């Protein structure tokens, strides 16, 4: 844990220091954001459709009336679903990829080679990935939220019988701009966790091909749990701020 915090501190220290590596940053951003868009849109659409069905089911039980369903579903989507599902998808795609990449570099002694050449590995490897993940996650968060809402609106139109107009009216009652901004803050936090955890496990990879596999597994699990914990903390914080 202390070693992980040391890596975080060192990364933060390295962010403002020269040389900046814009081309590396854009390459990573392309990998994190552009290449993930189809997968994120696809998954989040299905998740949103299920959410609205489930909210309708529960609403009918509790208040025998599902007229609030669109608003309720929209709230769940904006506050939790879209960003968390996106972040969990990103841990498996980006996080696993990063851990494997950095781990392979560690066991083939490429990281030592970097040090020999006078290049600081954290500055060379972690900083561009961190910035790309934070910015990429915010972009993906916006896309995921909009896709989710559209998918939910569509399902509620043809399955539950709420016209899009009703959906938007009901949504306005429950959610506001602050929920959307909160979602983006969450996305940025998740984008901060994923590369740091994966790079940490990558740097501390054990020797051999098996070590890389183990580092990948550990990084996916650790970042998924960390995402849930941070999600809880932020949800708690936001709800206190609101109340």
């Amino acid at each position, binding site marked *: 844990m202390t070693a992980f915090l040391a890596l975080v501190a060192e990364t933060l220290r390295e962010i403002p220091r020269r040389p900046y590596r814009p081309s590396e940053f854009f390459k990573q951003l392309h990998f994190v954001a552009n290449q993930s868009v189809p*997968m994120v849109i*696809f*998954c989040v659409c*299905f*998740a949103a*459709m*299920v*959410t609205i*069905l*489930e909210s309708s*089911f*529960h609403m*009918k*039980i*509790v*208040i025998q009336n599902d007229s*609030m369903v669109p608003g*309720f579903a929209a*709230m*769940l989507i904006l*506050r*939790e679903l879209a960003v968390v*599902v996106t972040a*969990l*998808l990103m*841990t*498996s*795609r980006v996080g*696993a*990829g990063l851990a*494997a990449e950095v781990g*392979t570099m560690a066991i083939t002694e490429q990281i030592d080679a970097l040090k020999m050449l006078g290049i600081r590995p954290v500055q060379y490897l972690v900083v561009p990935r961190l910035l790309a993940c934070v910015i990429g996650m915010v972009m993906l968060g916006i896309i995921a939220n909009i896709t989710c809402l559209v998918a939910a609106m569509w399902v509620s139109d043809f399955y539950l019988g709420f016209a899009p107009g009703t959906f938007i009216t009901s949504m306005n009652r*429950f959610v506001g701009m602050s929920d959307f901004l909160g979602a983006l803050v969450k996305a940025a936090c998740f984008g901060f966790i994923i590369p740091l955890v994966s790079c940490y496990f990558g740097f501390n990879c054990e020797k051999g*091909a*098996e070590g*890389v*596999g*183990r580092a*990948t*597994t550990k990084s*996916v*699990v650790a970042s*998924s*749990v960390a995402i*849930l*914990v941070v*999600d*809880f903390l932020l*949800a*708690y914080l936001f*709800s206190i701020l*609101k*109340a």
Partner: protein
Amino acid sequence: MKIVNEIGRTLQFFFLIMETMIRRPCARREVFVQIWKVTEQSFLTTGMAGFFVGAIMTVQFTLQMKEFGALGFLGGLATSGTIREVGPLLIAFMLAGKVGAYTSAELGTMRVTEQIDAIRCLGADPIQEIILPRFLGIIVASFFLLGLGLMMSIGGGMLMGALFAGVNAEEYVRHIPTIVTSVSVVSGLIKCFVFALLLATVCTYKGYSATGGAKGVGLAVVGTAVTTMVGIVVADWLTSFIGESVLRAAGVY
């Protein structure tokens, strides 16, 4: 087209496993070993994840239920949401990251170091000897983990309900039996089974068909994680819609 091809191969592999299971059952002992291994590997992660999910759901539902003046339903709602939807989904995600990745790495390493060919040379069937126990182990263990995750999420919800919403434990559990019906429990179990089936098939298939050295193993691991997560979300949607339609047709609600 590549995706369609890959789905077809996975299905083919699934039917091969089914066929082997019917014709040549594997050693029962080995299945128990695998069940224990999966449970032991992931009970801590699943428990922790369950706890925090229960807490998150309670925090989110509180604001909502306050508006309707129905805070008493908090426990029932959070528990029902967990057993029907979030629980199975989450267990599957956690297992995909841990057990799925581990299994495909293990099988992939066996493949690229030609241990699988060696098994075949010795006259044994690798599907029967190494794939089937893992496959069954993941499916059985996922039910244990679902139970554990659910218990932990009720615990997390109760704690947050008491701290945040002022709903004490007794009030929290009071409405659980009225909202969580047997239909919900069965649908949660079906979902869990479907997700486990999907995960077990994909991770054994990806590992078994890995090619090209250490890099191939790495690709198999990442492929497993991504495929199962996408597959699970789609399967979730399918089971929800089909279940809903069947129940409506049967007149349950």
